[in-house]
């Protein structure tokens, strides 16, 4: 088996105010997989993403990353689009390249390509407030992808969107992953979304304890046929039961 891209071993995270966010976490992220972290609020899912991104450090145990030396290998999509409202969509997507010292004209092909990937090829000149919620999230994803990261971290990116937009973005995200081969670590509260998107789901309980790891052994591309299939319903039931155990604190 190949070395994991990210590996937490007995990792813990305690904040300066004494809050224990993670304790004894063992979790691997394999290359090119779509791993979803599913669990109740406050179980440490977002903390795991911040640790992988290098925005925080573990307090105990170890975290190893295969891409430690190259930070352009990580893309991050937040729950809100987190766009710079004063900048056009183009300039928002250009940001990671600008911070790495690229001139605007030199970065232009990469930016336009990222915009095209998310279906915003003609919206580069618009400002974020002129876009719908779904388009803003697409711009946020384009920004995360513009450096072609090895790992894409997504913290409940579609939580605030309506169901129709969410379904569409789910499909687009799977298509993007199929095209780019990016490893995705995705945080959500939705059982249905996690089953539809993932190749593996880690169901988390309080303090980042992994209650269950469930592989979703269904090939891509997935579509409405999968959403309405008995296989999908079976996986949803299995994940729901694991989530219930996580919420009950039943580790048996």
């Amino acid at each position, binding site marked *: 088996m190949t070395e994991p891209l990210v590996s937490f071993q007995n990792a813990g995270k305690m904040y300066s105010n004494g809050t224990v966010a993670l304790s004894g976490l063992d979790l691997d992220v394999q290359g090119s997989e779509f791993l979803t972290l599913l669990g109740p609020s406050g179980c440490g899912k977002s903390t795991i993403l911040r640790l992988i991104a290098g925005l925080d450090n573990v307090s105990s145990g170890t975290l190893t990353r295969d891409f430690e030396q190259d930070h352009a290998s990580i893309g991050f999509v937040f729950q809100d689009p987190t766009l*710079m409202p*004063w900048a056009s969509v183009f300039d928002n997507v250009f940001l990671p390249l600008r911070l790495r010292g690229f001139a605007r004209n030199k970065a232009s092909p990469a930016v336009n390509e990222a915009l095209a990937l998310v279906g915003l090829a003609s919206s580069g000149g618009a400002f974020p*407030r*002129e876009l719908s919620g779904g388009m803003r999230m697409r711009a946020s994803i384009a920004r995360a992808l513009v450096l072609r990261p090895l790992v894409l971290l997504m913290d409940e990116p579609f939580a605030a969107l309506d169901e129709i937009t969410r379904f569409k973005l789910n499909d687009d995200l799977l298509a993007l992953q199929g095209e780019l081969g990016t490893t995705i670590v995705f945080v959500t509260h939705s059982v249905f979304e996690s089953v539809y998107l993932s190749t593996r789901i880690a169901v988390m309980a309080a303090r980042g304890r992994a209650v269950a790891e469930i592989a979703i052994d269904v090939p891509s591309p997935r579509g409405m046929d999968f959403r309405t299939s008995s296989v999908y319903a079976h996986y949803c039931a299995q994940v729901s039961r694991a989530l219930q155990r996580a919420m009950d604190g039943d580790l048996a």
Partner: protein
Amino acid sequence: MKSFAVRPPRWAARYGPPALVFAAVLAGWEAYVRLRNVPAYILPSPSRVLETLFTDRATLIPALLVTLKTTFAALAAAVAGGVGLAILFTQWKWVERSFLPFAIVLQVTPIVAIAPLLLIYLEEPAAVLVCAFLVAFFPILSNTALGLASADRNLVDLFKLYRATRWQTLLHLRLPAALPYFLGGLRIGGGLALIGAIVAELAAGNAGKGAGLAFRISEAGYRLNIPRMFAALALISATGIAIFVALSALSSYLLGRWHESAAGPER
């Protein structure tokens, strides 16, 4: 049968009501003075004030230019000082801890109490300039410092993720995020710079060389030239309104496409 309601243009709906109220007040004032035969040394009519503005222009316009020069020089210094210090506050907390108390002391001490002291230590034009600077400085400093510290936490994390330098974070994140706050402070500071200049000119009084509009008001008061007092006052009001309108237009221009305070309805 279809009926079509005729709507007034947007500018008429926006500016019509205040213009009508202003015209009605002037008309009432004019009528009162004329019907009651109020002497000009008690209350001049608006037409008399307008006439004085024209006849005394050789005295009033140079005075206006002096006050304007003081106001804009003070505002420019307040912008440079306020923004510069706010940036230092954000970059190094020890600078904020060291200097903020002094900025607050200057803010809470009434300018009319400081002006006589400044007139002892400085030449009159410099003292007036410093007074106007002191009152305009604090709103620009405090608003800009607040804006620089108010950048979206997730965006700050994103800049950290991409290993942005402190300079890049300031230039591409904190300064643009602070722009609406700065412009709010600038609008307040613009009005206060004029007030500071006028107050300092009044405080300078006899010590002054009779340059600014405030001195012309004092001088006209001593001579019971009430129409000239009103004319000078009208010029000060018009200047204050012009500064406010110009800074509001600048704010709309810079924020128009992206900030809630200036933009139209979003999608």
